[in-house]
């Protein structure tokens, strides 16, 4: 085993860290959070120019990365800086699905994605699907020359900013069936498609997407009809690695801020870090951080494995990061006292990112049950 990053990844990490520490401070981010679009196109373009989106795609796909460890390196840094721009949604999820399943014409988009000129969203979850990837009810009816999509997609992150959505819909079977699900690339301006947006608590924006007899040509379908489930699961696995790495980065920031605070905030004439009641809790957070890092490394390293190994490690990481993340977020707030509760202070945003990450791709409980299923034989 070798725990060192490759030279390329080390460079990527250094560049990204330097850029974000120069360009993405708390005041900048708070302005972005308050803006109507909830994202900064300037930051987006600059990061694209640095090659951040390219690192999310493999060489065959036109990028220069795309492996689990590439995602982990990029997203840990994004998480550390509390970046709210939807790289996960455009780059890993929707963009990734196009790259995985697309034909030559469809793959032409990848270049624009990597250049930062095309924004995407993955419209998959539905009001009653919770975290179950196969519970798709949106229907796709193929009438030969066009396919009609109808249904409702819930909490679609980045839908408003997206030029195109990757929409999942069922061509046969019923909610919960693995077979029968297809993916379609649908421009957001298509007739019958409505996007009702709102801000997210932890930054960025999402929307309810309604598809009312939305007509798309057969060429909008990604891959074979009804066969998209395994690609969706694999992409969500990649996104989960990215999400866990992002949470890890945010946890590092939370711990760093808290340690710093424990050393400077004085009560009863001494730094509060000298109270054992607090020092021991900080130690527990640092222990959990190491565990979280291991879980992220495991998930990233097994992302290219066959399904059983991959998914077991994904559920392991999502469960562990969910638990450790909650602990770090709550304890960091508590050890700071009132100041952590203020919008202005960096920790408030970071803590929200950490906790709300549990609501994407399955929470602690969902992945505990899944881990049991995947390891029971």
């Amino acid at each position, binding site marked *: 085993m070798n725990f060192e990053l490759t030279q390329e990844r080390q460079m990527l990490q250094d560049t990204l860290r330097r850029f974000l520490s120069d360009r993405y401070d708390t005041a900048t981010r708070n302005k972005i959070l308050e803006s109507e679009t909830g994202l900064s196109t300037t930051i987006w373009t600059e990061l694209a120019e640095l090659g951040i989106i390219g690192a999310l795609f493999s060489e065959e796909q036109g990028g220069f990365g795309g492996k689990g460890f590439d995602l982990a390196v990029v997203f840990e840094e994004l998480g550390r800086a509390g970046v709210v721009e939807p790289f996960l949604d455009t780059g890993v999820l929707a963009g990734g699905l196009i790259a995985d399943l697309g034909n030559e014409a469809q793959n032409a988009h990848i270049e624009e994605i990597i250049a930062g000129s095309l924004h995407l969203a993955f419209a998959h979850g539905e009001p009653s699907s919770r975290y179950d990837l196969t*519970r798709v009810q949106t229907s796709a009816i193929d009438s030969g020359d066009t396919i009609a999509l109808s249904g409702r997609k819930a909490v679609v992150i980045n839908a408003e900013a997206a030029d195109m959505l990757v929409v999942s819909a069922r061509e046969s079977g019923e909610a919960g069936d693995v077979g029968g699900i297809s993916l379609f690339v649908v421009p957001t301006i298509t007739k019958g498609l409505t996007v009702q947006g709102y801000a997210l608590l932890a930054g960025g924006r999402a929307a309810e997407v309604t598809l009312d007899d939305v007509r798309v040509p057969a060429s909008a379908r990604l891959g074979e009809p009804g066969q998209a489930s395994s690609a969706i699961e694999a992409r969500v696995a990649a996104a989960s690695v990215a999400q866990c790495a992002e949470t890890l980065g945010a946890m590092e920031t939370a711990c760093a801020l808290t340690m710093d605070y424990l050393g400077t905030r004085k009560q009863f004439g001494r730094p509060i870090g000298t109270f054992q009641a607090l020092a021991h809790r900080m130690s527990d957070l640092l222990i959990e951080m190491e565990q979280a890092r291991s879980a992220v490394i495991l998930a990233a390293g097994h992302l290219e494995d066959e399904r059983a190994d991959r998914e077991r490690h994904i559920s392991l990481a999502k469960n562990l990061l969910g638990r450790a993340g909650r602990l770090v977020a709550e304890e960091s707030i508590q050890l700071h006292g009132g100041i952590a509760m203020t919008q202005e202070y960096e920790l*408030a945003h970071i803590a929200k990112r950490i906790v709300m990450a549990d609501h994407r791709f399955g929470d602690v409980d969902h992945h505990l049950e899944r881990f049991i299923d995947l390891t029971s034989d």
Partner: protein
Amino acid sequence: MDLSYSQEEIAFREEVQGFLKEKLPKNLSDKVRKGQEPTKQEQEGWHAILNAQGWLAPNWPIEYGGVQWNAVQRHIFEDELAAHYAPRVVPFGLSMLGPVLQKFANQEQKDYWLPRILAGDDWWCQGYSEPGAGSDLASLKTSAVKDSDHYIVNGQKTWTTLGQHANMIFCLVRTDKDVKQQEGISFLLIDMETPGIEVRPIVLLDGGAEVNEVWFTDVKVPVTNLVGEENKGWTYAKYLLTHERTSIAGVGFSQAGLRAVKRIARAELAGGKPLMKNPHFAARVAQVEIDLVAMSMTNLRIISKAAAGQAPGVESSMLKVKGSIIRQEINDLARRAAGAYAMPFASEAIEGANDALPDPHAAGPVAAQYFNNRKLSIFGGSNEIQRSIIAKTKMGGGK
């Protein structure tokens, strides 16, 4: 011991239910059920309704206009308020200042301020904390210097809850710098309209602005507004804090919160079945319900023991620690129950501006509440400080 309710107690519960059905405004209880903040006017309206009924001050002795219910009656009352989604009565005047005035103020002050609290003439806020004086409250620096019949107050208070609505603030101020910290503090009532006072909002992580900074620059306060003796304020402050802590146990809020968790979890589907039928989630809910039922009994035992009007001692710290943990756990379950629908920013959902968030999920506020209620283990003396108090009291000297 008899744990069943007597005929009189059952009749009392029915009386309370009848009152709430008739007098609690429907739009107000709807708001509370959805986790929305009542406006100042709505708060004042509800305060007036309770006062008209004579039920505003269950914790006050009769001579001051209180009710003098026994512990079981108070418990039933609280229970029913929560069950009917009544808003929380703003505690600063009624639960905090009132008991201090009753015990330590002079007759003139009692005669003037206590009826005003009941009538809702003043909106009080609490000026204890300062930027440098949080847990170490006695290190506070806001100074009050006597100048014939006035004090001149200078300094800064912070975290002042609902200070934006208040016309009166009760403050701890330093009146003697040259003695042991705790000995030079006084308890002063200050009119917020006095020149030299500035209130600045602090936005919290859930986007709300319930707390404020309050700045004092050469503020003139009549000496008649000093409660008790000069330099004895620390005693009164600590007395007030034990009162503050009991209400923080928040059994009623937890009960309402638990019902909300179950409501969301019955509507939310997991694997095609209601989440409430998921054994894993159901177990978490049951666990916290068990803790809550026991705490409700602990609460009842503790209030019965404390004679009417008397502040409970170290038990109030126990209630505060356990009560806040239980409430926070319930908030956590509500957030989880909502799934992806916990992610939208609450204020939009709360304002009803976004009908995209469908009712069974109606989850908008749950994550914001989860974050906002991190305060429960921080304010009123953090849980760490409470644990130290418990250890010190029970073991002597333990820190």
